């Protein structure tokens, strides 16, 4: 298993150092300039339909591309008090969906409480699952819990073969992911007619853009069914963001400038118009508000004169807020676009 940037004392563990690198790139014009050329600057939110809650950086894996720098030794975790503030905000809004992420969100002591509370409020709950967490002894009843609360599971699986998956996520992770998917299938997840939704997330195992979503979904569907008897609902393609551990990979492998140029050259105005920050509000483990999970990891808080913490949540002020952008945003606007729900166009 790899190590986090924090445990390696890597300078890129600092968000300021990451932002410095992103600002210095010669490979692309400032993101704001590119957005202005297509009439999208300044970028504003169009509402909030997803409250994305990042409950912390603790994870049982240390994937090489992780934008959170999550890992087993990370201790940043959302407390019950902050979780309660999130649910209070949800109750005072009409946001239909919460999207719980991490780290491995299921390892947070308040994860199940959050799910239960959100479901009691009648909201849809999505969980971003690394799959291997389902096999931990402490999580033996997790799949059953998902079923009981109709949680939509969005599971990371970068490729349908072991070599590529393990290269990104760690030795043996592909085999564990297969076992976890088979477990979810046995509970009805991803099985036609069950109503239990299981989506996969594919992101490239390297410094290149993802393929067409429909094309790679078909290959996953065929390979996983044939080799392992696994079924799923949809596959989402997500572009690797040039931040945190993936930024470290780009720099150390000599791919940074080339990747930034690739993202910028593939800038797609249609994707830019539909980026997820326009309809998402992101909450950090400590309750700080952000436009998206990537801004959260770069510690780019909401703009001036806006609520900065979930305790001050005010949907009127936030619905059409101006969104904070920087050069990492090219990751969401390249090619077919990228979001937590996959391609944008």
């Amino acid at each position, binding site marked *: 298993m790899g190590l986090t940037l924090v445990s390696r004392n890597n300078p890129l563990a600092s968000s300021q150092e990451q932002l410095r690198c992103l600002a210095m790139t010669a490979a692309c014009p400032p993101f704001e300039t590119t957005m202005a050329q297509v009439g999208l600057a300044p970028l504003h939110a169009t509402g909030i339909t997803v409250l994305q809650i990042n409950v912390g950086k603790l994870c049982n894996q240390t994937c090489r591309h992780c934008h959170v720098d999550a890992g087993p030794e990370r201790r940043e975790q959302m407390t019950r008090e902050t979780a309660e503030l999130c649910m209070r905000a949800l109750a005072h809004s009409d946001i239909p969906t919460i999207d719980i992420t991490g780290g491995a969100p299921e390892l947070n002591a308040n994860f199940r409480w959050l799910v239960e509370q959100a479901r009691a409020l009648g909201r849809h709950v999505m969980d971003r699952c690394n799959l291997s967490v389902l096999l931990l002894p402490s999580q033996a009843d997790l799949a059953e819990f998902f079923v009981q609360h109709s949680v939509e599971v969005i599971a990371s699986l970068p*490729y349908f073969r072991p070599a590529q998956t393990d290269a990104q996520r760690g030795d043996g992770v592909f085999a564990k992911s297969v076992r976890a998917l088979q477990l979810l299938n046995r509970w009805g997840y991803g099985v036609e007619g069950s109503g239990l939704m299981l989506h996969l997330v594919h992101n490239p195992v390297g410094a290149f*853009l993802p393929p*067409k979503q429909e*094309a*790679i979904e078909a*290959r996953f569907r065929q390979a996983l069914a044939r080799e392992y008897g696994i079924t799923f609902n949809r596959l989402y393609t997500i572009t690797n963001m040039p931040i945190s551990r993936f930024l470290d990979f780009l720099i150390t492998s000599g791919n940074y400038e080339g990747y930034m140029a690739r993202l910028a050259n593939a800038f797609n105005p249609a994707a830019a118009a539909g980026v997820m920050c326009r309809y998402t509000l992101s909450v950090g483990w400590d309750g700080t508000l952000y436009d998206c999970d990537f801004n959260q990891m770069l510690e780019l808080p909401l703009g001036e004169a806006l609520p900065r913490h979930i305790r001050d949540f005010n949907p009127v002020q936030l619905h059409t807020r101006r969104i904070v952008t920087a050069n990492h945003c090219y990751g969401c606007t390249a090619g077919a676009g990228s979001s937590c729900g996959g391609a944008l166009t």
Partner: protein
Amino acid sequence: METYYHPHDLTRFADMGKGNPELWGKFIQYYSAVFADGALTEREKALIALGVAHAVQCPYCIDAYSQACLEKGSNAEEMTEAVHVACAIRGGAALVHGVQMRNVVEKLSM
């Protein structure tokens, strides 16, 4: 060191339009149509292009289509097999000309 090939020249391919924009435009239109999804998928066409790139030994094409294959969802095993196809055809093309050699040898020999 000066060389005939520079990686950054790949990004200047469109400069070829400066000499004759009309022909360049027709070429790009045709090129785009060729690589679009059709009876073959974009992914399959990129693998063919990768094999051809090795057969014609164009470093620009190898660079471009190695990345294109990855971005179409192919993996290194598939790409290696595409290169072996090019290798087999090139090698086979050399070897089949050995029949001509044998014809000459048979004609000249007692």
